[in-house]
């Protein structure tokens, strides 16, 4: 089965549509959404509608910290993110807010765990940014494959049977075999706000039969996404950073 995985869409309609189109062309049979559908971008209402529709049709979705902040007690956030979330709360209707609030922190299927951030304490939203956090996250689950997002920079960690960790920065479009003798943590880049210096939208494809993971990048209409942020009165810095991928 071909599974398309998306993380950190952040209300960027143009980026999300571009990724979905490409994943469909690649033959995606199942969709997994790893949280942070809103915040930063100018189309939270459209994105949440789309996610709700996908979940209706069988997609898996977990909760992200921005989604949680829409209705729950305030998360710790930088001023721009805070501003964007307060605005987002006003834009979303009750059903949309209810949908986000009801999302689970983690989901498992077969030998895979889906979570937005570190899996050892998902509610703390700990960034997986080195082998240290990756090892802690892998130790918290029995599943062979874990997938998360949150940090907006793609990475791939593995844990060997002798408890040795490896870390790796994947290149786009390379099929990486996830060898069965190890446990793997795939950290996805961000669909809607990449921060690894490459402005292209990021997602990943998992081929469960071949046990291969492919990190993908798609160029999208950044101009339109940025215009949307500006026209809805969000901080201009949120539009500018999309062009730099930082």
């Amino acid at each position, binding site marked *: 089965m071909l599974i398309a995985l998306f993380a950190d869409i952040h209300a960027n309609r143009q980026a999300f549509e571009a990724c979905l189109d490409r994943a469909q062309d690649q033959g995606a049979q199942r969709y997994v959404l790893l949280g942070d559908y809103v915040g930063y971008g100018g189309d939270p209402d459209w994105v949440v509608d789309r996610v709700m529709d996908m979940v209706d049709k069988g997609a898996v979705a977990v909760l992200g910290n921005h989604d949680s902040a829409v209705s729950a007690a305030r998360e710790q956030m930088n001023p721009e993110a805070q501003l964007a979330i307060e605005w987002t709360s006003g834009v979303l209707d009750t059903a949309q807010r209810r949908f986000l609030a009801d999302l689970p922190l983690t989901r498992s299927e077969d030998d895979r765990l889906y979570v937005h951030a570190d899996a050892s304490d998902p509610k703390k939203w700990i960034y997986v940014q080195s082998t240290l956090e990756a090892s802690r996250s892998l130790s918290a689950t029995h599943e062979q494959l874990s997938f998360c997002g949150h940090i907006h920079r793609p990475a791939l960690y593995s844990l*060997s049977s002798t408890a040795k960790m490896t870390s790796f920065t994947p290149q786009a479009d390379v099929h990486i*075999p996830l060898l069965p003798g190890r446990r793997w943590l795939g950290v996805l880049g961000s669909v809607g706000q990449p921060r690894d210096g490459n402005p292209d939208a990021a997602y990943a494809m998992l081929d469960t039969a071949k046990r291969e993971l492919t990190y993908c990048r798609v160029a999208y209409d950044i101009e339109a996404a940025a215009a949307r942020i500006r026209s809805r009165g969000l901080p201009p810095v949120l539009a500018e950073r999309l062009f730099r991928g930082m």
Partner: protein
Amino acid sequence: MVKPLLQPGSVIDGFRIGEPAHRGGMATLWRVTRDGDTTPMLMKVPKIAEGADPAAIVSFEMEQMIIPRLSGPHVPKCFGVGDFAVQPYVVMEQIAGKSLLSRLGNLPLPYDEVAAIGVKVATALDDLHRQHVVHLDIKPSNIMFRESGEAVLLDYGLSHHEQLPDLMQEEFRVPFGTAPYMSPEQLRDIRNDPRSDLFALGVLLYFFSTGERPFGESETLRGMRRRLWRDPVPPRKLRPDYPPWLQEIVLKCLEIEPAWRYPTAAQLAFDLAHPDQVKLTHRSERMQRDSWAVVLRRRFNKDIMQAAPKKMAAQLSSAPIVTVAIDLGEEAAAVNDALRLSAQRLLAMLPSARLACVNVRKLGRIALDTTLDEQGHNKQIDRLVGLRAWAAPLKLDEERLTVHVLEAVDPAAAILEFADANRVDHILIGARQASVMRKLLGGVSAKVAAEAECSVTVVRPPRGKMPAALTAPQASS
């Protein structure tokens, strides 16, 4: 799941197990067959019994990832991979013949034979590096030859693939590899520099041409570390008749700093294939090792080792071999100027690129050609001089420039063959001016552009700068 028995006669995933071909410390090789397939095959099965060296598992995992992705004549073809859940194995093509290890009793080998081996291995390495892999265990036992002559590189258990996770990365406290062949940077845990393989090949060339290993056989870390500051005895000191060009090449491969070695395996192969064109430097003249003052400076200057290299692909593409095809006839002056300008621009962007200037001396199909013309000049030498004169305004470092006169009936075929044999990355060629000849015969540049396996730039003089003789209407009779 029941684990299938691994013994002669049993079948795993369609492969019928034959006799063991080799039992090594980390793995066993079994001869296997498959219905409908006549290729001789070997199944490599790692030793993963309790208490086995964890290195055996990790290096097998690396092979499992890397071998199925490789292609071409310089690697064993992969037929199947089995995972650790049932029975881990890799089935690959069995290469006939013996590895270079079998030659150890005949050392030292004649110099031209060493160079010929070097060309083949460097060509194979170039192919491997272009597939994003640094081998990191180049040594005689991992090198075999096809009947058609190409070197085949075996054993990817210690290799690094630029696009895949490096599982060896944090696995071991000590560097892994084969002590006599290990590069200085490998001793510092740098695993992604293709020039490490050029160092190992340099060790092999040194060993095969002198009969001695340049850094001995010490397997202790302390012994191996000496190569971080101590240079080897110059081969000429061991064999007084050692050719300076070969010493130049071998010592360049064995430079402690990767940046001082050849930038690519293709450039090393090029020099080994053209001994008369090797630029001799102080390396070729050395009769002694560096003085103790120099060695001590290296020993205690921690900055001497550069940081990790740039991306492999970037490293390779920054050092292409560019060939420019030059017609030395007078009517070609305008296009030759344009070619020089193109070459200049290309080389200015790529300081590690080298330029091979080629001229083709067209032979008649029937007439017996003499190398002396009517005035008794040696045509070959005249043309070499002509090529150097063309290149002189480029003011290239001599290390970056070579000149070649090819003799052929079909100039385009000769240029294509030269480009192929020397792994040329880019050909610059002038368009033949409009003429009856071109209409009748087709242009050389057109054929080169159509059939070359590398990039080809067809260059014309700037508009309005056509030589008068050619802009005049051509008589058609």
